[in-house]
């Protein structure tokens, strides 16, 4: 196991280095610059700014400078938010996106799995169709529509909750709900289809024949196997939800980090583009690693170090 983890760690490092290198050169290949507003930009002023951020150096020198500071976990200064470093932007934004994302994830995983199981058990019944209609709506209605609708109905018309901003748990409910809709739907559909498959297997019939209670059959025997595909997508889903959503954070004025994924590219804010990419990919790679380990726990037939045994 330890050997496996060591090997994985090295390949993770290489993956991150490849991502850093690709992003760095691709991002500089996009036309435009951070000091390229429509307004008057005097040449001297632009040159001084470029010198300030080392953008006047050769691209490979810049790459070297970046790698060096990255090894010290320093993402550099933000160009747009000129008095803030990328480390500060991330350390302020991520906990908030994480908090909101965790609530949304918890809600979507629990309800998604429940809805999926339930639809599978009542296959082709009214409840199945109802649950899956809900799931299709969840996937196909864009979350900015869902968010605007929720605000209009719940906050403006019914005045039950505040419209936006980030101040108390009350402010968290609407964005978490809007954010959880699409993962909930994905999880529900996935759970349903794999449950349907598992429920027709022989060992379930055996379990039934043994006279086990329906609860035990579903939770202990069927669900455990049916969850494998759900866990597979959970890695990417968790990384995406926890790092925040551009749309939801903008509509609800939440000071998370999700907005930087889009705004940094529009602004050509190179250090922020790099910072968010490195942060996100590191998180994603780590979560995929956890998923691999989780396979082994859920299904002991899957051996992590199988290759070595062969």
């Amino acid at each position: 196991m330890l050997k496996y983890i060591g090997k994985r760690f090295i390949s993770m490092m290489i993956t991150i280095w490849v991502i850093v290198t690709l992003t760095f050169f691709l991002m500089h290949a996009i036309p435009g610059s951070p000091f390229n507003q429509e307004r008057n930009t005097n040449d001297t002023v632009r040159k001084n700014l470029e010198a300030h951020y080392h953008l006047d150096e050769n691209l490979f020198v810049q790459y070297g400078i970046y790698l060096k500071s990255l090894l010290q976990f320093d993402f550099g200064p933000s160009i747009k938010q000129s008095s803030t470093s990328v480390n500060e932007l991330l350390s302020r934004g991520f906990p908030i996106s994480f908090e909101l994302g965790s609530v949304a994830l918890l809600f979507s995983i629990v309800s998604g799995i429940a809805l999926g199981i339930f639809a599978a058990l009542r296959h082709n019944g009214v409840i199945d169709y109802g649950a899956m209609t809900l799931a299709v709506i969840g996937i196909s209605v864009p979350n900015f529509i869902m968010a605007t609708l929720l605000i209009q109905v719940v906050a403006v018309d019914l005045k039950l909750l505040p419209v936006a901003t980030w101040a108390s748990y009350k402010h968290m409910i609407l964005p978490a709900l809007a954010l959880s809709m699409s993962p909930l739907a994905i999880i529900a559909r996935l759970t349903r289809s794999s449950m349907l498959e598992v429920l027709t297997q022989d060992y379930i019939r055996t379990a039934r024949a043994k006279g086990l209670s329906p609860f035990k059959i579903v939770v202990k025997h069927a669900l455990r196997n049916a969850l494998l595909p759900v866990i597979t997508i959970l890695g990417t889903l968790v990384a995406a939800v926890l790092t925040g959503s551009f749309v939801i954070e903008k509509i609800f004025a939440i000071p998370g980090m999700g907005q930087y994924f889009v705004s940094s590219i529009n602004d050509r804010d190179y250090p922020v583009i790099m910072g968010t990419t490195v942060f996100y990919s590191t998180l994603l790679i780590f979560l995929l690693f956890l998923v691999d380990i989780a396979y082994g726990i859920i299904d002991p037939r899957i051996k992590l170090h199988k290759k070595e045994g062969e």
Partner: protein
Amino acid sequence: MKKWSVMLVAFVMIAMVAGCTTGANPPGKEGDKSGKEKIVSLNNGNEPTSLDPPIGFDAISYNPLNNLMEGLTRLGKNNEPEAATAEKWEVSSDGKTYTFKIREDAKWSDGKPVTAQDFEYAWKRVADPKTASPAAFLSYFIQGAEEFNTGKGSAQDMKVKAKDDKTLEVTLNSPQKYFLSVISNPVFFPVPKETVEKNKDWAKEANTFVGNGPFKLAEWKHKDQMKMVKNNNYWDAKSVKLDGVVWKMIGDSNTEYQMFQTGELSTSGIPADLSEKLFKEGKAKVEDQSGTYFFRFNVKMKPFQNKNIRKAFSLAVNQEDIVNYVTKNKEKPAHGFVAYGFNDPAGGDFREIGSDLIKPDKEKAKELLQKGMKEEGYDRLPPVTLTYSTGDDTHKKIAEALQEMFKENLGVNVKLASLEANVFSTDQKALKLQFSRSSFLADYADPINFLESFVTDSPMNRTGWGNKEYDKLIASAKKEGDEKKRFEDMHKAEKILIDEAPIFPLYFYNQVYLQNENVTGIVRHPVGYLELKWADVK
């Protein structure tokens, strides 16, 4: 089986309903409080890029900063500069040297006196190439500033000097009366020398920020909100009626409007789709903003090397129709390039005196197109592509309306193209676009700021056009001490610009907003930043 499926449904339902009903307290507490405590709640749109005066050169930084600090002058309710941190000043007979006397009772929010040295330090910091201030070009009015900024001069040679603790002497390159208005801009705010030297991150957090304005920064939750409270150390604290200001940072215009509806915001912008309705209901208010929406021809590309063809396209455009049926935002149609709001020495408005330099004229447009094509020997007009930037739907709508006008009034089929804003800007500057949308917002309150853009090879020119007579007029206006003569030069220059038509204007920008009935006294300058010094809550 049945029992536990019922439980599942119940769980899902409870979870969903809980999402909607927990904490059913009515929102808008801030709105209620403001009744007793006089607090105005505003939306800044985003986190300020920086509250360090030479760094955060944009509205999201300068709107709050304008209320936290104060320069030697401050724009009054009539948009004219008034004595602020400076109590009075003298101007030398050649109009170039200003001697400012700083108020004895001008204090920083930490109680220390504001000194002339603070101003000297701050202004040299703007021009210092090491500061890399995007606003450094505004300091070029001062002798030696441009040299310092371009690395050819030094701080000592920049002509701003503290004579003593309360006297500041500044020497300009040429006599410019509007200098007093220029220095109300946050770029020219003083900074507390001692604090800045000790801590370069002084402007990053509420507890280290020091100001000298009507309000002081009490709390700054980054990207979330800022709270300001009345600054009792401010020299004119008795004029400040508000107890505090809350600045939220909401990027979405619909959310902003919804928060205004629930009373969580005192003012709001207007979502584009609702402007017509809100104007009809009489709720939307309008204020001028000094800036022009216009289009650029590339005179280095066919067929726009020809003046008559450029002119034909300009005359085919109906500015009134654009503001009435396309933008529907009550902008003033532009028949000249310089916006309204700049008075000449006789008190006349530059735009009104300059009159309408271009008006839609279908017949003449067709005639000029024929003439131009003949001059160039064209049987058919080379293909024309109009490029706009994405990100704002208005640009697309306007481009489509123009396409229709060119077809109807000139019989020309213009192709449309769109580019991402940053790429658009790069291509426009590199003269890669044939015909493209543009905007200009004034950095300081004088017609020359509009007109200097089109001097040959100016980084704002972006058309390839150059005219010696025009360059001469602008250069002379910049040196001229006689205001009457200066305005004459500028009128002549504007006439050349519109007649030669490297550009044509569409409309002048405005500021459209909603405001709670009980909030008064917020001043929105055409050039300048939001002013809360005189704001009040009834």
